[in-house]
């Protein structure tokens, strides 16, 4: 069976000069959730942008390697066409259309259905996010952070995606909402069979719903494996889950402060 998404040896350069990805490879199976973790600036967002075709819009270019969606090469397809083929990118920082209402945001997303027989199913979105239903006529710019994130995911749902690229959906959200959103993401995956590539800083939450994980560092993957194995990896425990030295408990921030540690995977 072909994977929903496979990325091979991807190289990405910004402004013709700044190399960000250096031979990154990963795979997302059909109907699966895959987590992608890594430090700030490792190139996670860049990876997603490369897949969804947004890279050229930000002065970036693919310098080598390839990206396949269900077996077909998609490296040089225009982003709106990719969206219409079912790859939907929920961008970092929510990015709702601020001066459109909630409903209009969803209508705008229905563009992704162009060329498909499907009719936009707004009720589905409001079913997953009842809070959005209440705010249907409100300008999206005035929604709270969590509501905006819900709208961003809801917008992606309208597009009936086959593959969803989620970039830090928990960013800036209250713990309760994070829980709620991760719950919904898992439900969408289970109920609608959408494959997902999930970029997250909150490793605990990500491992909670993903079956497989990649950890990247300076533009390439340094560790990968089923999440069940990753949570037992001592490096992952220390640097992503925050376990203290010699313990299997999360250390207090007060205790880590006076010595400085630098993790560097050699690769």
């Amino acid at each position, binding site marked *: 069976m072909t994977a929903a998404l496979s990325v091979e040896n991807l190289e990405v350069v910004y402004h013709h000069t700044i190399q960000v990805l250096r031979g990154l490879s990963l795979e997302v199976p059909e109907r699966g959730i895959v987590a992608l973790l890594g430090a700030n600036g490792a190139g996670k967002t860049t990876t997603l942008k490369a897949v969804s075709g947004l890279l050229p819009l930000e002065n970036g270019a693919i310098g080598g390697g390839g990206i396949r969606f269900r077996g077909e090469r998609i490296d040089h397809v225009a982003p709106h066409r990719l*969206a219409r083929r079912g790859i939907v990118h929920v961008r970092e920082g929510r990015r709702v259309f601020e001066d459109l209402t909630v409903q209009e945001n969803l209508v*705008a997303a229905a563009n992704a259905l162009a060329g498909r027989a499907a009719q936009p199913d707004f009720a589905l979105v409001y079913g997953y996010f009842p809070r959005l239903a209440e705010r249907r006529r409100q300008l999206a710019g005035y929604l709270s952070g969590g509501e905006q994130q819900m709208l961003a995911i809801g917008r992606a749902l309208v*597009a009936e995606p086959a593959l969803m690229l989620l970039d830090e959906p928990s960013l800036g959200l209250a713990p309760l909402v994070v829980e709620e959103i991760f719950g919904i993401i898992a439900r969408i995956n289970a109920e609608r069979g959408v494959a997902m590539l999930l970029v997250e800083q909150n490793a605990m939450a990500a491992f909670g719903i993903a079956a497989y994980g990649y950890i990247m560092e300076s533009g390439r993957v340094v560790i990968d494996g089923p999440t069940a194995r990753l949570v037992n990896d001592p490096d992952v425990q220390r640097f992503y889950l925050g376990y203290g030295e010699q313990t299997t408990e999360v250390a207090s921030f007060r205790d880590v402060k006076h010595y400085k540690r630098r993790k560097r995977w050699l690769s």
Partner: protein
Amino acid sequence: MSGAIDWLLLAEFSLVGLLSGGVLALIALGFVLVYKGTRVINFALGEFMMVGAYLFWTANVFLALPWWAALALTLAGVAALGALVERFVLRPLAGQPVISIVMATIGLGAVLHGLAEAVWGGANLSLPELLPRKPLLLGEILLPGQVLWSFALAVALIAAFTAYFRWSKDGVSMRAAASDPVTAYAMGIDVRRTQRLTWMFAGVTGAVAGIIVASMTSLSPSLGTVALGVLAVVILGGLDSIAGAIVAGLIVGLLESLTVAFVGGQARDLVPYLVVLVILMVRPYGLFGTRDIERL
């Protein structure tokens, strides 16, 4: 003079002023459409008007086509021009600061102006009247026909565009693309298409306004300068408010007429601008403009 006649005069000036706001609103609409679609003030709008009027002249007078055929040809021509402008000027500039794009439209205006002068010459040409001239007499008050009709035309166009942006899917997509083009792409919106559409609309409304203005005055490469004066209308209504264009057009038309009546023609441009400035101090986004969401 008795008081009664003064009132009549005032009424006459006011009515004529209000109605002549129609032309202003029509031109303002051209600005608003581009702003709505791309967040830029199109300083080349005047030149779009001028080119539209010249195309119409060429088709209608020079080639002697009937007016409807000439109009259709003209609109197709300016729409194509708008698409070209989008492709070769605006698209490469995506992501640049607003002022650069504004400057590019100024440069574009100069190019169109120069080309028009090279092609059609600098002399004045005249267009046949399109709108019926028959004036309407309300008692003592005389309303010039073309003023009335251009008002009606402006209202109709503005209503159509308002509905389009509010309810059609393309309209919503255009607004989304203007708000955040990158995300719009990610949502499956063909941003290039919406922007091309924006500029084609701008060309079309500009040409309609240009033909009307040219038929009321005369046609020369400097026809476009009238558009600059209309900017007061645009910011009064709010740069992104279509309905604002008509309301502000009426207000400024009225102000201009009253200024001519009681101050003198030399202050015609000035008084409206000053009034607009004062209003803007109270409402920085005009009467109906959307305020930018400023959050920290």
